[in-house]
């Protein structure tokens, strides 16, 4: 009887820590009452707002410190300890600035565009598995959804450029559109390589498929190649240097957000940084094993030491590393011209991407992984 009790207790504990996504929990608790669902919605909105503001401020602070380090400066150091409150002060300044809409602009669209731009990264945040227990929704069409929503992202920029009724904004928006649509192809091809390797489109499934080794090295050169292509194409989709011709301040003032000020400009700014986080998180999830710890073959003691680090710390560490690389790009490469940009995508990345996908298919068919694959 005692053993039965212990068994029951064990089972309930296991059920409690069994990984479930936040969406599942919300749906379960909302079984009876509509108001609980409404409460979940409210809590979700507050939580997302807090997360966004924190992430945005933290990333901007990091960006400024990293930029300073690359240029042998100190960076923000006056407001608060180590200048930590500098971005808070800047954000407050942006909030209290006048929200200016040009007289000849399309007022409604001018107002909507920043929200559209911010919508996409926020939706994508929901799909990322932060740890085995922390994920908002695990769709079984995860990758497809990411591609779909990512294509939607260009709309905010296009509409911002058009509605401002300004030539610079318009040129910036057209450049952004052409650039994002082009580079989306390569990014999708790189994503498909991972889908081929792991045999699933669910992000948690992809993380779990990397238990024996991350795809960046278990997929031979194809995995590494897909990783590099995805990183380059994503940087282009982020409109960050060296692909920042949509904003190109030396030629277009500020590109598509020339006519924006105050909180609406802050939204574009925030969208860019949240996008950077999302892209880094996706790269970490797809190629670097997400929250999976780093293991080396049979080194049992090393592996168990690695297991002692919590999964969310692994995830955050990987994401931070990739964010640092993306910031590094900014101070290393000069801005590309439009024709160089198109040349890089259509004549370099795209053919390599296709060839890479083909090679990956051969690797999967031949089951020629360096390590044995679980479940095959």
């Amino acid at each position, binding site marked *: 009887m005692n053993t039965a009790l212990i068994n029951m207790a064990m089972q309930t504990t296991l059920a409690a820590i069994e990984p479930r996504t936040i969406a599942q929990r919300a*749906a*379960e608790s*909302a*079984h*009876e*009452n*509509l108001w609980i*669902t409404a409460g979940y919605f409210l809590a979700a909105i507050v939580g997302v707002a807090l997360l966004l503001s924190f992430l945005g401020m933290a990333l901007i602070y990091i960006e400024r410190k990293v930029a300073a380090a690359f240029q042998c400066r100190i960076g923000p150091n006056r407001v608060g300890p180590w200048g930590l409150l500098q971005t808070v002060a800047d954000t407050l300044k942006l909030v209290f600035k006048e929200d200016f809409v040009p007289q000849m602009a*399309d007022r*409604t*669209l001018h107002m*909507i565009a920043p929200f559209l731009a911010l919508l996409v990264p926020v939706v994508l945040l929901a799909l990322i598995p932060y740890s085995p227990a922390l994920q908002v929704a695990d*769709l*079984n*069409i995860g990758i*497809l*959804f990411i*591609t*779909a*929503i*990512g*294509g*939607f992202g*260009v*709309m905010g920029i*296009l*509409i911002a*450029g*058009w*509605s401002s009724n300004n030539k610079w904004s*318009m040129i910036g*928006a*057209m450049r952004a*559109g052409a650039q994002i*649509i082009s580079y989306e192809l390569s990014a999708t091809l790189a994503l498909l390589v991972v889908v081929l390797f792991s045999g699933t*489109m669910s992000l948690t499934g992809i993380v779990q498929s990397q238990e024996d080794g991350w795809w960046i090295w278990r997929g031979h050169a194809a995995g590494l190649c897909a990783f590099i292509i995805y990183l380059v194409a994503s940087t282009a989709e982020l409109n960050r240097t060296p692909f920042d011709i949509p904003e190109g301040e030396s030629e277009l003032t500020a590109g598509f957000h020339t006519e924006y000020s105050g909180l609406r400009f802050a939204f574009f700014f925030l969208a860019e940084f949240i996008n950077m986080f999302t892209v880094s998180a996706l790269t970490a999830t797809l190629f670097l094993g997400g929250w999976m710890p780093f293991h080396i073959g049979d080194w049992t003691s090393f592996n168990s030491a690695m297991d002692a680090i919590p999964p969310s710390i692994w995830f955050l560490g990987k994401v931070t590393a990739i964010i640092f690389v993306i910031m590094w790009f900014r101070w290393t490469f000069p801005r590309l*011209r439009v*024709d*160089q940009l198109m*040349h890089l995508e259509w004549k370099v990345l795209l053919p390599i991407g296709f060839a890479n996908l083909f090679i990956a298919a051969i690797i999967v068919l031949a089951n020629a992984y360096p390590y044995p694959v679980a479940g095959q």
Partner: protein
Amino acid sequence: MISDATYTVMFYGLSATVILLALLAVNARQLLRAALGLMGMLALSAGLYVMLRAEFLAGVQILVYVGGIVVLIVFAIMLTRSSELLEDHPAKLTRILGATFSIMFMLIACYALGTTKFTESESTQAVRDEVRDIGLALLDRGANGYLLPFEAISLLLLVAVIGGTVVARKTPPKHQPFTTGGDLRGETVAHPPLVQDDEHVVESKS
């Protein structure tokens, strides 16, 4: 999992918004606003598909219609001077004809909806791995497979891609002073240097 009341609220909320956005798409005076309405409408219909447990269809809907077609439409609008193409007052005949056909279509649709018997599908109860099913069905050579249509569509898309490239390709004029390749590949200028007089660009005699 979610209670019926929640579903009902979600369904009516989504449907009302979809209808409003569809009206905006038809009635907006500015082309770009109409395109935006269309975008919102298509994206929210994907929400309806999700409620019907057709997640793959919802994803493809957003991918193809919102991310592809609407973005193309917006691009086309931005490339034209759409503000000067405003057709504020269509002819009376056009309006009458349009109204007649819309009302007729609405009557037919209402009739069809009223007379159809809707049976509850059984397959909605179990959650299937629908992506795998679709993938297997697309590459199945058997009687229930779609291999031939799949290949035919691939061929059609390939033809479309090549056709688009050929149409978009610009044959440079004979005396084009520079190539669009710029200094990327270190091209040497094939033409002799050009001399510009007042009206024409002519090749120098040297």
